[in-house]
């Protein structure tokens, strides 16, 4: 069957410039910008959008330095095109003349042929410049926060954030053994190496989900190797009543169901659209034994009063641990957002603590690097709640201990085993 969408091939540079424009001017995330596009997105334009965001700060510094006057507000798509052009010129294996010609040509596609001279002049000048190394390509507030939290490791973190993350898989052990799945991958010509856990596989090179053997039939999911540590941290029994309080899109919940079949799990999320996505993934993986609830985890309107044995809070956060996968975070987020997230995170922990039975465990996690969203949230909670929570000791084969938990960083030496930045803290409700 076919739908009526016109299938006209859009020029890669025009597409990349439009997508980047959506992110830097309109303020969408890359995921949103990609989802809104009806045309198929080519791998080249995808690479140009991600790369432009990864090196956004040094690229825009350079363009501003050679422009005589700033680009007008109504022509911000040209500004995006200049960024895409400079990225190609300096960071991709595209010969300079091709990068310049194709980018100049893209002015037509944006409906602004009058800008050809300008784009040509800017890119020709930049073709001769050497790439400056001064900014680490992070906004100042982020540099400050990371340097304060990780004085020894900050520079390594900045460099790691600007690399591409490997594609990690989680084999659905309820359906197939990791060895058998790895053989299936090998048959399909996809090379994978083992990760930290038996069910983790890391691909040599990323592939699309259509080409991933058994993806549609639920043998495997795509999930960062760090996010896969959750079942290691909260061993569950078959009768455990679990609440996953910010469940969608469901990766961590499904992992727990795959590892501990039979648990009595409830998936709570505030967004119905995101719950629909969770449902779709659940069907793909064949998980149908959990309960879904739509509700706001910062109040108790959804709660029927039966206490949970284990509460998992994978809290909304700045995502600063996932910059390798979402370089738009560096451009879109500000220091104020971190404060707002920290307030929400504390409210979530305080509220959900009440749904935990005495003797039960709460696992708080974020994909943030900032102590403000991690140890400091736990610390505030401990201050507020007196003696009742006991911090459990955590230890993982990678990462480092913090005062109240464990921090994963994107900086591991073995590139195949790197994880995103994650924070975990385990709190036990004393009887």
């Amino acid at each position, binding site marked *: *069957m*076919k*739908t*009526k969408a016109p*299938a006209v091939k859009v020029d890669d540079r025009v597409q990349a410039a439009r997508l980047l424009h959506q992110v830097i001017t309109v303020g969408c995330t890359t995921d949103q910008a*990609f*989802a809104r596009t*009806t045309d*198929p997105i080519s791998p080249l334009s995808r690479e140009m959008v991600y790369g432009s965001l990864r090196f956004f700060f040094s690229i825009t510094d350079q363009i501003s330095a050679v422009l005589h006057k700033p680009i007008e507000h109504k022509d911000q798509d040209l500004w995006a095109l200049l960024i895409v052009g400079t990225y190609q010129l300096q960071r991709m294996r595209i010969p300079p003349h091709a990068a310049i010609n194709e980018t100049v040509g893209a002015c037509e596609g944006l409906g602004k042929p009058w800008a050809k001279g300008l784009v040509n002049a800017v890119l020709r000048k930049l073709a001769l410049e050497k790439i400056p190394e001064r900014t680490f390509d992070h906004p100042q507030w982020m540099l400050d926060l990371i340097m304060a939290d990780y004085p020894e490791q900050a520079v390594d973190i900045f460099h790691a954030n600007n690399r591409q993350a490997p594609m990690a898989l989680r084999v659905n052990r309820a359906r197939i053994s990791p060895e058998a799945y790895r053989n299936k991958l090998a048959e399909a010509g996809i090379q994978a190496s083992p990760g930290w856990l038996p069910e983790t596989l890391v691909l040599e090179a990323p592939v*699309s*989900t*259509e*080409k991933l053997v*058994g*993806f*549609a*039939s*639920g*043998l495997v999911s795509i999930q960062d190797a760090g996010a896969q540590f959750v079942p290691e941290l909260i061993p569950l029994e078959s009768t455990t009543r679990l609440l996953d309080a910010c469940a969608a899109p469901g990766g961590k919940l499904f992992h727990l169901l795959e590892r501990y079949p039979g648990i009595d799990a409830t998936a709570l999320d505030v967004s119905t659209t995101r719950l629909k996505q969770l449902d*779709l993934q659940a*069907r793909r993986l*064949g998980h149908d034994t959990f309960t879904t609830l739509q509700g706001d985890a910062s109040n108790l309107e959804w709660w029927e009063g039966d206490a949970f044995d284990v509460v998992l809070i994978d809290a909304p956060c700045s995502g600063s641990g996932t910059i390798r996968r979402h370089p738009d975070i560096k451009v879109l987020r500000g220091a104020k957002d971190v404060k707002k997230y920290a307030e929400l995170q504390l409210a979530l922990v305080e509220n959900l603590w009440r749904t935990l039975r005495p003797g039960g465990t709460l696992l708080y996690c974020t994909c943030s690097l900032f102590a403000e969203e991690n140890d400091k949230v736990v610390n505030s909670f401990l201050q507020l709640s007196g003696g009742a929570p006991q911090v459990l000791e955590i230890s993982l084969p990678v990462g480092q201990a913090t005062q109240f938990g464990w921090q994963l960083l994107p900086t591991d030496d073995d590139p195949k085993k790197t994880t995103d930045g994650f924070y975990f803290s385990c709190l036990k409700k004393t009887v």
Partner: protein
Amino acid sequence: MAILEILEYPDPRLRTKAQPVEAVDNLVRTLLDDLFETMYAAPGIGLAASQVDVHKRIIVIDISENRDEPHAFINPDLEISGKEIEAEEGCLSVPGVYESVTRADHVLVKALDRDGQSFEFEATGMLAVCIQHECDHLEGKLFVDYLSSLKRSRIRRKLEKEHRIQALP
């Protein structure tokens, strides 16, 4: 993987009734990969094996915008329910034609996956419509069969004319 040639209406081979798959082996899996590749390249949102002249009961579907929700059904068995909905349909075997067709809003599919394991799948809305459209192909049926004979013969003449033009040296 390979992009296969899609038969076009009124090719009589599209009227062949497809046979059940006896064993989900590597040949079937290769065909699935090729069907997906052909469908994504076309680009379409669903493709039946019948449309590439392989008369086995296999369909592939992906109606997602991001092209990242592939579904494959081998030996699909449909149970139709729910209210009727009207949607504009097109078909890779009837290029350039879009017409409204009325179908059920809800289907329950029993089928085998690419590992030969049986599974059940429920769909509503556009996904349900697309599954019904593809399963029709396996019976040798096309969406133009739901239209009036006048419309159908007009479409037939239009496509025959296009095929004659394409055949010119």
